[in-house]
């Protein structure tokens, strides 16, 4: 078993990046995720593994540092929170277009605008539907514990390179700030330049005589060429939909009602299940772990066995659209959410289930 620690979610993200063999972290401070870079600077990964850590002048610069680093094949990561991630959308779109691997962490806070520094899940649409311009997706992971914050960094890098795509870890201020027990995976050595060049023959890191020059770009002025780029991206997304769906079912076997929730909301729903079942209400939880690809078939399978679904989110109703698209309109599907940085309490969730689904 790996090393056991009590860590904040943000710290786990940072430690996992070092251990995953990340080559470079580029970020800009913003609450509630500043601990990521603070932890990295204190840990001196440049001495531990040779990893570069740099505080950029803005989120715009940070994401473009990622774009540059990823374009050379290096394993790079950034983290930010909602307003900062909005600023990064341009760069993310370019990276998706140029098919570059990277891990981008969004420790979501309430919005819109400067909003609040308290936790939220209101960036679901931005993360899942492609927040920048153009037809693109990112693989989006939604950790629900500090352990998953750690594990999803490693998984995120694996998938980023497998598909040559930016991967987003969509978490929230509460998971970023809370401490839980974490079992850390062992240090993965950083790739040598020779290993990198072998793994990333597409990368721009110096043209030897033995190959043509590599060009990293998202530009193709010829519409036919740009359509080919788009078709390639879409084929990649279909492949992700087939192979990369992750989800968890909790107490669904005998469930008559269902919660669908991701991240922190899913944790709250687990408590709500205990409270509801104590009252004799048989309710289960379906937790999407990948938000893109969304577990459509899987939620549909469970959804079609129950009498009603309550989608619980810390937003005004975003993932519910995907749940409705997946399950259809034969059963009642309602949303319960608190927003602006308020975290719903488990008893509120139970009441919403009773009022909106069972009694409604």
């Amino acid at each position: 078993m790996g090393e056991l620690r009590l860590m904040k979610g943000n710290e786990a993200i940072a430690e996992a990046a070092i251990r995953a063999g990340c080559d470079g972290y580029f970020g800009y401070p913003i609450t509630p995720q500043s601990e990521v870079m603070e932890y990295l600077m204190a840990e001196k990964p440049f001495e531990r593994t040779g990893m570069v850590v740099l505080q950029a002048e803005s989120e715009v610069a940070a994401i473009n540092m990622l774009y540059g680093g990823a374009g050379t094949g290096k394993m790079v990561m950034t983290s930010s929170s909602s307003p900062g991630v909005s600023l990064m959308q341009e760069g993310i779109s370019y990276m998706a277009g140029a098919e570059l691997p990277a891990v981008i962490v969004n420790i979501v806070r309430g919005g819109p605008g400067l909003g609040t520094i308290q936790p939220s899940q209101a960036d679901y649409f931005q993360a899942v539907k492609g927040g920048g311009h153009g037809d693109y997706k990112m693989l989006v992971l939604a950790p629900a514990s500090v352990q998953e914050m750690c594990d999803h960094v490693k998984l995120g890098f694996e998938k980023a390179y497998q598909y040559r795509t930016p991967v987003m870890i969509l978490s929230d201020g509460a998971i970023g700030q809370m401490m839980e027990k974490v079992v850390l995976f062992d240090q993965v050595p950083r790739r040598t330049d020779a290993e990198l060049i072998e793994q990333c023959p597409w990368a721009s890191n110096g043209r030897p005589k033995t190959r043509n020059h590599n060009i990293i770009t998202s530009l193709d002025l010829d519409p036919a060429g740009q359509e080919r780029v788009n078709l390639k991206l879409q084929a990649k997304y279909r492949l992700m939909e087939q192979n990369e769906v992750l989800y968890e079912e909790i107490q669904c076997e005998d469930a008559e009602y269902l919660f669908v929730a991701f991240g922190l909301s899913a944790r709250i729903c687990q408590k709500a299940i205990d409270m509801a079942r104590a009252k004799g209400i048989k309710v289960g939880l379906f937790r999407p772990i990948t938000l893109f690809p969304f577990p459509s078939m899987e939620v549909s399978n469970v959804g079609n066995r129950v009498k009603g679904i309550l989608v619980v989110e810390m937003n005004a109703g975003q993932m519910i659209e995907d749940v409705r698209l997946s399950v259809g309109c034969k059963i009642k599907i309602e949303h319960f959410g608190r927003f602006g940085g308020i975290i719903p309490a488990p008893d509120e969730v139970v009441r919403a289930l009773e009022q909106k689904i069972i009694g409604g």
Partner: protein
Amino acid sequence: MEDKFAKTEIHKPENIVYKKSDLMVDRPLSYCPGCGHGTAHRMLMEVIEEMDIQDKTIGVSPVGCSVLAYDFLDIDMIGAAHGRAPALATAIKRLWPNHFVFTYQGDGDLAAIGTAETIHACNRGENITIIFINNGIYGMTGGQMAPTTLPGMRSSTSPYGRDVPTMGHPLKITELVAQLPGVYYVTRQAVHTPNNVRKTKKAIRKAFELQKENKGVSFIEIVSNCNSGWKMTPVQSNKWMEENMFPFYVLGDIKVDGKLVEKKETVEKD
């Protein structure tokens, strides 16, 4: 475009008096006839060829007329988003400290939308070379006003001339970055005459050599023309550049060995 006779005949060593760098890709440039970009590209590739660092060079191209620079330069390149090249170059150099990293940017890219990235990469003293082509106009989008457009100069968004009270002053960003301690070498050159071409190439060579010494940013501005955007013939545009651009953007070294150069405001002429 291959003319076999011409190629085999001309390529006989005894017949060659001049050839383009092997690091220039064999395809026609997309630039307007008379534009300085082609010459600037060639100087850059000659330096990389002569230093034999093709396999250790990573270039970052901008958005603007030279957005397709990577199609002409036979080196590994990454096309940046508009203005962000210095951020890319920062990360690339940090991650590949023994490689040679440069950005190639126009005035809109470097001195308007990318000002923050330019200033901060310079201020951090990144060991990169920034090549800044200043022709005082947005060429690619059709001749709009640039941060470096001269007072009174016409463009499609200043059709009656740049009106300083409403449109602001032209930005001498080169003099501005020269003030930063992270910047080690700053020079302003041109590529419209053989003598200026030679000086530009020498400056590029110096800049790349400095990367070996980890001295900080080397920043080369090349004042250039835009005959299409300026609505002139190439010859007229070069004359106009000498008469109007050079008095404002004075050629010569601005910072050498980390020290600002004391110099009189004179126009260099061949």
